[in-house]
């Protein structure tokens, strides 16, 4: 048991799914004195359940970081760009990491745990993958900026400024999870997920609690500083298994997945692009002008996609208005009985992402951190389902 009683710990990205669970465990199981940096109190409700020290500020501003980090022995850097353009995300990933490292150095922190990603290995191939594999650009803003951030973190550590341990998790799922929990569930409700090559590529999923355990170990274990560790679950998991678990949570109903070859998936995407080129503009025009259209639109499952889009571009007032219109009632949102769900297009990039049978090795984390994943996909998904049910997602 890692004892952090009375020790000051600083966490960035605490309002996210991983950071949120990390804070929960730091406070409840390890007795740590936790301080967090948050941009908008609105997203910090889950954190406010605990007696934490809150600092409002931005991870890219040194003065905010210096104020928040003061006296912290341990730093967990989980923040990454989530708002604005892809370019801005990348900027936050790079500059935010640099500023956090500098602030940790100035504060004399004993250890920084930097949350990186499997994506720093770019497009991986079939077979075993460990930390000796070359880092490569994947070609999107998130992956490439995380690659730069990780390189900076390791450089910082090796030059002796502040000891940094880097974790490279695979697909993280679990309660309060976004990318690999809430999004797939919402997607499977809205349409059929394409399983590239029958979904036999490897997802290498990891339950959020296993990742948090690895992060805690990385914050205290000798030999972790200056090193990167791949973190995955106990067994390789195919994308089919992962998506079928999510689909099962949604209960009986229409088919929620569809198998395609990579070529078919790419062709489907091109067809979809051609067919919908002008739809967005048209939709917006009708949405603004036609009350009956709005009302009918609100009753469709496709709306979920629009909501996603809306949350990033529309002003608060309009969002509130839309939200109000979508207040449920007994007759709205009818599942089209017997109808087939539309096939959700996959970008060519995602098609490539789903293909390889990469077997992520966690031997290094086992050896140096003493990491041992405790959650099989089955168990992790059972707990995730309990949460998803409570959260009205299934």
């Amino acid at each position: 048991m890692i004892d952090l009683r009375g020790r000051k710990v600083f966490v960035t990205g605490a309002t996210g799914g991983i950071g949120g669970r990390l804070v929960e465990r730091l406070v409840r199981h390890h007795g740590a004195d936790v301080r967090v940096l948050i941009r908008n109190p609105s997203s910090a409700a889950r954190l406010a359940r605990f007696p934490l020290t809150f600092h409002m500020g931005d991870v890219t501003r040194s003065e905010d970081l210096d104020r928040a980090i003061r006296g912290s022995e341990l730093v967990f850097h989980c923040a990454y760009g989530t708002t604005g353009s892809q370019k801005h995300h990348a900027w936050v990933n790079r500059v935010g990491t640099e500023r956090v490292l500098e602030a940790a150095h100035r504060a004399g922190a004993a250890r920084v745990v930097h949350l990186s990603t499997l994506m720093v290995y770019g497009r991986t191939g079939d077979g075993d993958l460990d930390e000796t594999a070359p880092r490569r650009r994947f070609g999107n803003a998130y992956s490439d900026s995380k690659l730069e951030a990780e390189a900076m973190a390791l450089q910082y550590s090796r030059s002796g400024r502040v000891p940094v341990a880097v974790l490279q998790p695979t697909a993280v799922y679990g309660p309060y999870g976004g990318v690999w929990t809430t999004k797939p569930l919402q997607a499977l409700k809205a349409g059929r997920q394409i399983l590239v090559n029958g979904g036999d590529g490897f997802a290498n999923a990891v339950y959020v609690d296993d990742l948090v355990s690895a992060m805690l170990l990385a914050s205290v274990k000798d030999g972790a500083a200056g090193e990167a560790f791949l973190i995955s679950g106990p067994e390789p998991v195919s994308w089919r298994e992962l998506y079928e678990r999510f689909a099962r949570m949604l209960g009986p109903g229409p088919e929620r997945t569809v198998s395609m070859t990579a070529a078919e998936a790419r062709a489907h995407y091109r067809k979809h692009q051609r067919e919908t080129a002008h739809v967005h503009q048209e939709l917006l025009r009708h949405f603004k002008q036609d009350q009956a259209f709005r009302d009918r639109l609100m009753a469709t499952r496709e709306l979920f996609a629009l909501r996603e889009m809306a949350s990033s571009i529309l002003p608060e007032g309009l969002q509130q208005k839309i939200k109000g219109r979508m207040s449920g009632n007994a007759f709205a949102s009818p599942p089209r009985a017997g109808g087939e769900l539309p096939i959700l297009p996959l970008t060519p990039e995602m098609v490539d992402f789903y293909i390889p049978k990469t077997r992520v090795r966690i031997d290094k984390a086992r050896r140096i951190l003493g990491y041992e994943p405790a959650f099989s996909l089955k168990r992790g998904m059972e707990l995730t389902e309990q949460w998803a049910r409570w959260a009205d997602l299934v």
Partner: protein
Amino acid sequence: MQKVRLAVLGCGAVAQINHLPAISASELAEAAVVVDADAARAREVAARFGVPETATDYREVVGRVDGAVVALPNSLHAPVAVDLLRQGVAVLGEKPMALSLRECDEMIAAADASGAALAVGLDFRFFDSTRFVKDLLAEGLLGELRSFDLRQGVIPRWPFATDFLLRKETAGGGVLTDFGVHVLDLLLVWLGDWESVDYRDDAMGGLESDCELRLRMLSGLEGTAEVSRTRNLRNTCIFEGDRASLEVGIWHPDPPITLRFGRREIGLAGKARRPGAPELSYLDVFVRQIDDFATAIREGREPFIPGREGRRSQALIEACYAARKPLDVPWLEPAELAGWRAGA
């Protein structure tokens, strides 16, 4: 006719998004001064809404205005209101009215003593749907009521100016105090007073983000209310009667309402409407609230939601916190869950 002169205390999100636009749109009131501890913010907001004066201390408004809109952090609602009411300044207080019944009573006593109007900003009462549902239930259209089930959950994106809501000392409570007060007030409007409550939430030394009430009303009717800041729930209240069921959207001024007889397939879905009236917006609701407050000041009458009405939901909130048990979180592993349930 001369407009009623108002001060707006606090230049945070609710002042900028709701109160000041409503005062600008009102025929009966005008903003004479805005107050914020942050002088720059006060000046910026004043310039944006064309308010002639600013101040950094609320006490400066005494003698310069007829009434004040108190849109400060929760912990300041009661002390500031009491001080102003004692000096004869009418108060429209943001919700929650106060952080305890004792504070509510002090506010009511101060208003009674000076004769200044005290209005509580439980703006959901100004929705036409609120009134319609009340009438529909009172008319017995559903037959004898068997249960109610209210689920209100929104992952908020409110642009808070400060983090007062994250601190116990400034917020007073979590989601029950902040969001919950609105829906509890609705239940009290619709169903009358309550008899007993079973209450669970997820606070662990801080403020609850999710809570659940099992409520028994004086009428004997029982039901459930759930309020969340971490989940998007259906945001409706469902009433089941022995003849019909009713579902009304909450958290929006013009929600859909549906009525259904038993299990019959065909029901009625629509909106509550005054004849010829357009869709009700939040701006309309806040204008109604400001107009009611201004009229109460001018005519010396009681506002639509006086202090004793605001006190009702506060009493329920206080009873909830006193009866608090840990909310069940079934996605934790057994060992952790046991500790959680034990409140450890």
